[in-house]
């Protein structure tokens, strides 16, 4: 009787606990597990739909493209393509696939790539003969614009996919025709947007195809479990072509989106790797030897800047923009405020960008901190000592760092130029929508390189480009970029691009560069190998192993 009662009791307890929605213990794959605070809930696991780094981190585990990143240098190395040829004019790339399979055993062919790329390019909402069963609105579809005919096709100006420069001579070969020689194309095909998707699952399961238990992928890991808002877990894919290189049994991505909570989780031993840091804590962490060793901050391929809305006076006056730029002591900001080893910026190009020949920084010859010149320029523009300068607003999206920087710059402008600006703390989507609509005076922005080439840091400021948002345009700037596009000599090309940067960041100054990013992260020292500091914060999980 008593035993029966106890049984009933434990059943009830089990039922109650079962309905609480607990996630359960995450590490059920032994010791070779890496728990990472990913700091965001992934939007979609569909490679075509990705737009954020947190998704890319997961995609690098689940999928592999034609080429893949070297964990140290991030140079493209063979992925699904065991080798590739580039034609002499640099316009035709031929990828030779190795035999490989999806995680369900079905073999993966060049047709899978054509399907995946077509899915990215198909204008969403239209259904064309022979097109993918359902089209997606890929936020990075424009990366494919380098392929012949891709831009016209995705904009719906051409209906025939045959016009797009893709060919599959056989099931193991993919031929890509580019508009121009594009040296960074090898880099591009490592990007999620270019990764293959399993047509047999995608078309059958449609939007559900990324759910755990349904999803089929081709990377070193496969999706094991997914709890929105809590975590995502992948486990080793035994069918991966290079499975023996893969050492981790499983990877857990915690969705914890508040960096401070994630840091607490690290301190409590609940996570080993936090993909971010709160710079306000830097002093305290650095003061602690153990924590200081865990804190990394390599340079990152990105720049933090302010946009000036040049449609609005007095910001239409280049002298005002230059004065505002010159007045900001960017060293003080990076030294004391961001404090994670960021480099103060004079140009848009981050110093960690590798070019051949090396990029000549604008530092020392651009609009560096210079209060005297700033005051002189402002006076020349008709506002001596800031007199008569209208009250401008400085909008930024709510974030501790943005806020601290805004407050610092506000104070600097007041001290140096005697002008007042009003801070407008807006929630992210509002901030972005207003910025897009040109409804701002001064607005915080940033640009992260899509690939390792200077073009990515200049193209977005072309006249009328969607990400320009300042209303600024310069024929000369556009022409220089166009010239660089067709220039095949590397040194010449870099010279043209440097001239463009000078126009953008010195002569015209529609952007006020503050600093070049670093990516701060916290990694438990001495526990993992195969994680290297690099400029894009990309760490292919394939090469990570746990130290004994």
């Amino acid at each position, binding site marked *: 009787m008593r035993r029966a009662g106890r049984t009933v009791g434990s059943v009830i307890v089990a039922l109650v606990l079962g309905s609480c929605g607990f996630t359960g213990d995450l590490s059920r794959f032994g010791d070779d597990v890496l728990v990472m605070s990913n700091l965001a809930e992934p939007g979609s696991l569909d490679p075509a739909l990705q737009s954020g780094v947190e998704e890319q981190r997961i995609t690098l585990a689940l999928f592999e493209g034609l080429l893949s990143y070297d964990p140290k240098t991030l140079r493209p190395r063979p992925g699904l393509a065991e080798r590739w040829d580039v034609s002499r004019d640099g316009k035709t790339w031929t990828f030779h696939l190795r035999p490989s399979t999806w995680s369900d055993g079905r073999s993966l062919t060049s047709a899978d790539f054509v399907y995946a790329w077509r899915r990215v390019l198909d204008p969403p909402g239209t259904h064309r003969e022979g097109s993918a069963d359902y089209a997606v609105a890929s936020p990075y579809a424009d990366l494919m614009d380098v392929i012949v005919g891709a831009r016209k096709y995705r904009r719906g100006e051409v209906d025939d996919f045959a016009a797009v420069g893709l060919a599959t001579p056989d099931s193991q070969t993919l031929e890509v025709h580019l508009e121009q020689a594009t040296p960074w194309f090898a880099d591009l095909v490592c990007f999620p947007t270019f990764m293959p998707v399993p047509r047999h699952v995608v078309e059958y399961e449609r939007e559900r195809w990324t759910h755990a238990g349904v999803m089929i992928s081709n990377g070193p890991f496969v999706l094991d479990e997914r709890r929105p808002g809590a975590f995502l877990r992948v486990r080793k894919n035994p069918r991966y072509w290079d499975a023996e290189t893969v050492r981790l049994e499983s990877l857990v991505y915690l969705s914890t989106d508040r960096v401070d909570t994630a840091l607490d989780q690290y301190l409590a031993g609940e996570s080993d790797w936090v993909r971010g840091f*709160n710079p306000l804590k830097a002093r305290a962490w650095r003061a602690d030897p153990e924590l200081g060793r865990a804190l990394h901050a390599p340079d990152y391929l990105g720049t933090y800047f302010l946009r000036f809305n040049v449609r609005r006076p007095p910001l239409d006056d280049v002298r005002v923009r230059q004065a505002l730029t010159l007045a900001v002591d960017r060293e003080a900001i990076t030294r004391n405020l961001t404090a994670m080893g960021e480099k103060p910026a004079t140009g848009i190009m981050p110093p960690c960008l590798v070019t051949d020949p090396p990029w000549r920084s604008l530092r020392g010859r651009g609009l560096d901190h210079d209060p005297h010149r700033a005051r002189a320029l402002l006076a020349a523009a008709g506002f001596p000592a800031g007199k008569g300068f209208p009250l401008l607003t400085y909008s930024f999206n709510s974030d501790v760092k943005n*806020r601290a920087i805004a407050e610092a710059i506000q104070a600097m402008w007041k001290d140096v130029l005697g002008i007042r600006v009003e801070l407008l*703390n807006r929630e992210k989507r509002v901030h972005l929508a207003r910025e897009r609509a040109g409804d701002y005076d001064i607005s915080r922005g940033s640009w992260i390189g899509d690939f390792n080439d200077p073009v990515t840091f200049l193209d977005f400021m072309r006249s009328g480009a969607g990400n320009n948002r300042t209303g600024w345009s310069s024929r000369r700037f556009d022409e220089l970029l166009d010239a660089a596009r067709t220039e095949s000599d590397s040194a010449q090309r870099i010279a043209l691009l440097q001239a463009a940067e000078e126009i953008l960041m010195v002569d015209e100054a529609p952007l006020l560069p503050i600093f070049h990013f670093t990516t701060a992260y916290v990694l438990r020292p001495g526990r993992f190998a195969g994680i290297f500091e690099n400029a894009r914060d990309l760490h292919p999980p394939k090469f990570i192993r746990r130290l004994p």
Partner: protein
Amino acid sequence: MSGAVSLPIRKSWTLRVSFAFLLLVGGLALATPYLDLADPDAQNLELGPTAPSTEHWFGTDPLGRDLLSRTLYGARISLLVGLVGTAVAVGIGVLYGMLAGWWGGRADLLMMRVVDLLYGLPYMFFVIVLMVWFGRSMINLFIGLGAVSWLTMARIVRGQVLSLRGRDYVLAARATGLPTRVILRKHILPNIAAPVLVYATLTVPRVMLEEAFLSFLGLGVQPPAASWGSLISEGAVLFREYPWLVLVPGAILSVTLLALNFFGDGLRDRMAAEDHPA
């Protein structure tokens, strides 16, 4: 919620102590601009965060700003939000409650049913939505917080009016044909002033708490201005590293809320005692 319950405070010393404390806080808040304090927004990036010391009594934040000065200036904003938010709540609540009580009957039934229903809604969500979608201006803050705090006030006023309506002098005033507006203003309003005032003192801490709550979600006042709530929420994430950043303003906010609650409850108990002498 706190409106319906009472505290064990019948001795008036708690009333006096809390009143003195509130007076002190209010006085300091008013006098802040005239005190010889560090500029609350003046950054000292080299200095960074320092623990409380003789130079900075409350310490400094990661931007090297003096926390004492920021706390005092924060008091101005927190109290302002609390008072104006309460004023909005009182305005809506008194009007609504008075009309419901005066009209009585079906209108009253309907209006009170509406209040009942609104009671059960996660009202703060609407404030959040308001602040997220329409910008976090002070005006929105006042309106939002006031709009969610009027329900209990309306109930109390309605009850009072309902009982006053039958009093002789009100009946007499009605008999002389005075317009409703005048009766409400001259005869009803002065008589409900006391309970309204008491409940208002209990609303202030709630509004302040709600503002702090919004600040925690990043929806409070605009930088560089800081309320206690935003100071606490900034400090809360730095708890391990720089504990004074949350402990100091947290303690001050808590004690002030406690004092306001004590004060309001004390007032109510005293009033109840006057209503029903033992």
